[in-house]
Protein backbone atom coordinates (compact mmCIF):
# COMPACT_ATOMS: atom_id res chain seq x y z
CA UNK A 1 0.00 0.00 0.00
CA UNK A 2 1.41 3.39 -0.94
CA UNK A 3 1.78 6.11 1.67
CA UNK A 4 -0.73 8.28 -0.18
CA UNK A 5 -3.32 5.52 -0.02
CA UNK A 6 -2.64 4.91 3.65
CA UNK A 7 -2.88 8.63 4.33
CA UNK A 8 -6.21 8.87 2.55
CA UNK A 9 -7.54 5.90 4.47
CA UNK A 10 -6.49 7.39 7.79
CA UNK A 11 -7.99 10.78 6.94
CA UNK A 12 -11.29 9.26 5.85
CA UNK A 13 -11.53 7.15 8.99
CA UNK A 14 -10.65 10.11 11.20
CA UNK A 15 -13.30 12.30 9.59
CA UNK A 16 -15.91 9.55 9.84
CA UNK A 17 -15.17 8.83 13.48
CA UNK A 18 -14.22 12.29 14.73
CA UNK A 19 -15.71 14.68 12.18
CA UNK A 20 -18.83 16.80 12.42
CA UNK A 21 -21.22 14.22 11.05
CA UNK A 22 -22.91 13.99 7.68
CA UNK A 23 -25.02 17.16 7.58
CA UNK A 24 -22.49 19.16 5.55
CA UNK A 25 -22.66 20.16 1.90
CA UNK A 26 -19.95 21.88 -0.11
CA UNK A 27 -21.14 23.45 -3.33
CA UNK A 28 -24.37 21.55 -2.92
CA UNK A 29 -22.59 18.18 -2.63
CA UNK A 30 -22.63 16.25 0.67
CA UNK A 31 -19.10 15.89 2.03
CA UNK A 32 -17.31 14.26 4.87
CA UNK A 33 -15.71 16.95 6.94
CA UNK A 34 -14.99 18.50 10.28
CA UNK A 35 -16.58 21.86 11.04
CA UNK A 36 -15.40 24.05 13.86
CA UNK A 37 -16.12 27.63 14.84
CA UNK A 38 -13.88 28.62 17.73
CA UNK A 39 -14.02 31.98 19.41
CA UNK A 40 -12.15 34.77 17.65
CA UNK A 41 -11.69 38.42 18.38
CA UNK A 42 -11.87 40.92 15.54
CA UNK A 43 -8.99 43.34 16.04
CA UNK A 44 -10.93 46.52 15.43
CA UNK A 45 -10.96 49.50 17.74
CA UNK A 46 -9.13 49.35 21.02
CA UNK A 47 -10.87 46.32 22.45
CA UNK A 48 -12.21 44.48 19.43
CA UNK A 49 -15.40 42.57 18.74
CA UNK A 50 -16.10 39.01 19.83
CA UNK A 51 -16.91 36.69 16.97
CA UNK A 52 -16.05 33.19 15.69
CA UNK A 53 -13.78 31.80 13.00
CA UNK A 54 -15.75 29.08 11.17
CA UNK A 55 -13.61 26.52 9.37
CA UNK A 56 -14.42 23.34 7.45
CA UNK A 57 -11.76 20.66 7.02
CA UNK A 58 -12.33 18.29 4.10
CA UNK A 59 -10.29 15.84 2.05
CA UNK A 60 -8.22 17.55 -0.67
CA UNK A 61 -10.35 16.06 -3.41
CA UNK A 62 -13.51 17.65 -2.01
CA UNK A 63 -11.95 21.11 -2.16
CA UNK A 64 -11.12 20.96 -5.86
CA UNK A 65 -13.05 23.66 -7.74
CA UNK A 66 -13.93 25.69 -4.66
CA UNK A 67 -14.39 29.35 -5.54
CA UNK A 68 -13.80 32.13 -3.02
CA UNK A 69 -16.91 34.22 -2.29
CA UNK A 70 -18.98 31.93 -4.49
CA UNK A 71 -18.98 28.35 -3.21
CA UNK A 72 -21.54 27.80 -0.48
CA UNK A 73 -21.15 25.53 2.49
CA UNK A 74 -24.16 24.46 4.53
CA UNK A 75 -23.60 23.03 8.00
CA UNK A 76 -26.64 21.91 9.97
CA UNK A 77 -28.82 24.39 8.10
CA UNK A 78 -26.50 27.41 8.40
CA UNK A 79 -25.06 28.72 5.14
CA UNK A 80 -21.55 30.04 4.76
CA UNK A 81 -19.43 31.18 1.85
CA UNK A 82 -15.81 30.16 1.34
CA UNK A 83 -14.01 33.35 2.31
CA UNK A 84 -10.37 32.61 1.48
CA UNK A 85 -8.36 30.40 -0.88
CA UNK A 86 -8.31 26.73 0.20
CA UNK A 87 -5.47 25.85 2.58
CA UNK A 88 -4.16 22.31 1.95
CA UNK A 89 -2.28 21.06 4.98
CA UNK A 90 0.04 18.80 3.00
CA UNK A 91 -1.35 15.68 4.68
CA UNK A 92 -4.38 15.11 2.48
CA UNK A 93 -6.78 17.53 4.13
CA UNK A 94 -7.78 21.05 3.13
CA UNK A 95 -8.94 23.82 5.43
CA UNK A 96 -11.65 26.13 4.16
CA UNK A 97 -12.12 29.42 6.01
CA UNK A 98 -15.78 30.43 5.99
CA UNK A 99 -17.93 33.50 6.49
CA UNK A 100 -21.63 33.58 7.22
CA UNK A 101 -23.65 34.08 4.05
CA UNK A 102 -26.20 36.86 3.81
Amino acid at each position, binding site marked *: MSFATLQQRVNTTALKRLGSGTNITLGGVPVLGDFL*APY*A*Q*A*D*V*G*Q*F*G*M*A*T*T*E*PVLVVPDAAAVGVLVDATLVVVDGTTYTV*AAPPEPDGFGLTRLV*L*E*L*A*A
Partner: protein
Amino acid sequence: MSTLLAQVVTAAVAALQATPAVCLQVDRIRRRAVATTTDQAVVVRAGRAASSSESAFSDHPLLWVTELTVECYARTIGPEPDAVVDALIESVYARLMSDTTLGGVLISLEPRQVDIDYESHADKTACATLVFHASHRASHGSFS
Protein backbone atom coordinates in the same frame (compact mmCIF):
# COMPACT_ATOMS: atom_id res chain seq x y z
CA MET B 1 -18.04 66.63 42.24
CA SER B 2 -16.40 64.67 39.42
CA THR B 3 -13.28 65.64 37.51
CA LEU B 4 -13.26 67.29 34.10
CA LEU B 5 -12.46 63.99 32.45
CA ALA B 6 -15.42 62.23 34.01
CA GLN B 7 -17.72 65.16 33.23
CA VAL B 8 -16.80 65.12 29.55
CA VAL B 9 -17.41 61.40 29.23
CA THR B 10 -20.67 61.58 31.17
CA ALA B 11 -21.94 64.43 29.01
CA ALA B 12 -20.97 62.72 25.76
CA VAL B 13 -22.57 59.43 26.80
CA ALA B 14 -25.73 61.25 27.82
CA ALA B 15 -25.90 63.04 24.49
CA LEU B 16 -25.47 59.80 22.55
CA GLN B 17 -28.04 57.97 24.69
CA ALA B 18 -30.65 60.73 24.45
CA THR B 19 -33.79 59.54 22.72
CA PRO B 20 -33.49 58.35 20.04
CA ALA B 21 -30.17 56.82 21.03
CA VAL B 22 -27.57 56.54 18.27
CA CYS B 23 -27.53 52.79 18.92
CA LEU B 24 -28.67 50.31 21.57
CA GLN B 25 -25.32 50.06 23.33
CA VAL B 26 -23.42 53.17 24.37
CA ASP B 27 -20.67 52.40 26.88
CA ARG B 28 -18.23 54.50 28.80
CA ILE B 29 -14.65 53.26 28.95
CA ARG B 30 -15.37 49.68 27.95
CA ARG B 31 -12.44 47.31 28.42
CA ARG B 32 -13.78 44.11 26.83
CA ALA B 33 -14.62 43.04 23.29
CA VAL B 34 -18.11 43.79 22.00
CA ALA B 35 -20.28 40.68 22.43
CA THR B 36 -21.28 38.53 19.46
CA THR B 37 -24.95 39.37 20.11
CA THR B 38 -24.29 43.09 19.61
CA ASP B 39 -24.30 44.42 16.04
CA GLN B 40 -23.50 48.03 16.87
CA ALA B 41 -21.89 49.71 19.85
CA VAL B 42 -20.40 53.06 20.77
CA VAL B 43 -17.69 53.44 23.39
CA VAL B 44 -16.76 56.83 24.84
CA ARG B 45 -13.58 57.49 26.72
CA ALA B 46 -11.39 60.44 27.62
CA GLY B 47 -7.69 60.39 26.95
CA ARG B 48 -5.06 62.96 27.62
CA ALA B 49 -6.04 66.36 28.96
CA ALA B 50 -3.65 69.25 28.45
CA SER B 51 -3.87 72.62 30.13
CA SER B 52 -2.81 76.04 29.01
CA SER B 53 -2.54 78.82 31.47
CA GLU B 54 -2.91 82.24 29.99
CA SER B 55 -1.77 83.83 33.17
CA ALA B 56 0.83 83.22 35.81
CA PHE B 57 -1.64 84.21 38.52
CA SER B 58 -2.81 81.28 40.58
CA ASP B 59 -6.34 82.60 40.85
CA HIS B 60 -6.88 82.69 37.10
CA PRO B 61 -8.67 79.81 35.45
CA LEU B 62 -6.98 77.19 33.35
CA LEU B 63 -8.15 76.23 29.89
CA TRP B 64 -8.11 72.47 29.47
CA VAL B 65 -8.31 70.55 26.21
CA THR B 66 -9.29 66.94 26.67
CA GLU B 67 -9.03 64.33 23.96
CA LEU B 68 -12.41 62.63 23.72
CA THR B 69 -12.43 59.36 21.81
CA VAL B 70 -15.65 57.85 20.50
CA GLU B 71 -15.38 54.36 18.99
CA CYS B 72 -18.16 53.21 16.68
CA TYR B 73 -18.29 49.42 16.32
CA ALA B 74 -20.40 47.65 13.71
CA ARG B 75 -20.72 44.15 12.32
CA THR B 76 -22.57 42.77 9.32
CA ILE B 77 -23.07 39.59 7.33
CA GLY B 78 -22.81 39.73 3.56
CA PRO B 79 -22.12 43.31 2.44
CA GLU B 80 -18.94 45.08 3.42
CA PRO B 81 -19.19 46.81 6.82
CA ASP B 82 -18.16 50.27 5.67
CA ALA B 83 -21.75 51.25 4.86
CA VAL B 84 -22.98 50.10 8.28
CA VAL B 85 -20.25 51.85 10.25
CA ASP B 86 -20.62 54.90 8.00
CA ALA B 87 -24.23 55.31 9.08
CA LEU B 88 -23.22 55.02 12.72
CA ILE B 89 -20.44 57.59 12.27
CA GLU B 90 -22.96 59.98 10.77
CA SER B 91 -25.37 59.56 13.68
CA VAL B 92 -22.70 59.97 16.34
CA TYR B 93 -21.10 62.96 14.69
CA ALA B 94 -24.40 64.74 14.09
CA ARG B 95 -25.51 64.11 17.68
CA LEU B 96 -22.31 65.47 19.26
CA MET B 97 -22.07 68.43 16.90
CA SER B 98 -25.68 69.40 17.52
CA ASP B 99 -24.59 70.85 20.88
CA THR B 100 -20.85 71.40 21.08
CA THR B 101 -21.11 72.42 24.73
CA LEU B 102 -22.60 69.03 25.62
CA GLY B 103 -25.26 70.60 27.73
CA GLY B 104 -23.09 73.41 29.08
CA VAL B 105 -20.21 71.23 30.28
CA LEU B 106 -17.76 72.42 27.64
CA ILE B 107 -16.64 75.62 26.00
CA SER B 108 -16.49 73.76 22.72
CA LEU B 109 -16.16 70.33 21.10
CA GLU B 110 -14.13 70.14 17.92
CA PRO B 111 -13.65 67.15 15.63
CA ARG B 112 -10.03 66.26 15.03
CA GLN B 113 -9.57 62.84 13.45
CA VAL B 114 -11.32 59.72 12.20
CA ASP B 115 -9.62 56.33 11.82
CA ILE B 116 -11.38 53.23 10.57
CA ASP B 117 -10.25 49.60 10.67
CA TYR B 118 -11.90 46.47 9.33
CA GLU B 119 -11.63 42.75 9.84
CA SER B 120 -13.43 39.58 8.71
CA HIS B 121 -14.15 36.36 10.57
CA ALA B 122 -17.55 34.69 10.65
CA ASP B 123 -18.93 38.17 10.07
CA LYS B 124 -17.46 41.44 8.89
CA THR B 125 -16.58 44.00 11.51
CA ALA B 126 -15.46 47.58 11.54
CA CYS B 127 -14.58 50.24 14.05
CA ALA B 128 -14.42 53.95 13.38
CA THR B 129 -12.53 55.91 16.01
CA LEU B 130 -13.56 59.54 16.19
CA VAL B 131 -11.32 61.90 18.13
CA PHE B 132 -12.60 65.23 19.40
CA HIS B 133 -10.95 67.99 21.38
CA ALA B 134 -13.14 69.10 24.27
CA SER B 135 -12.29 72.51 25.65
CA HIS B 136 -13.29 73.43 29.18
CA ARG B 137 -12.21 75.78 31.90
CA ALA B 138 -11.42 75.13 35.52
CA SER B 139 -9.85 77.01 38.40
CA HIS B 140 -6.21 76.53 39.27
CA GLY B 141 -7.09 74.77 42.47
CA SER B 142 -9.55 72.22 41.12
CA PHE B 143 -9.77 69.63 38.40
CA SER B 144 -13.53 69.85 38.38
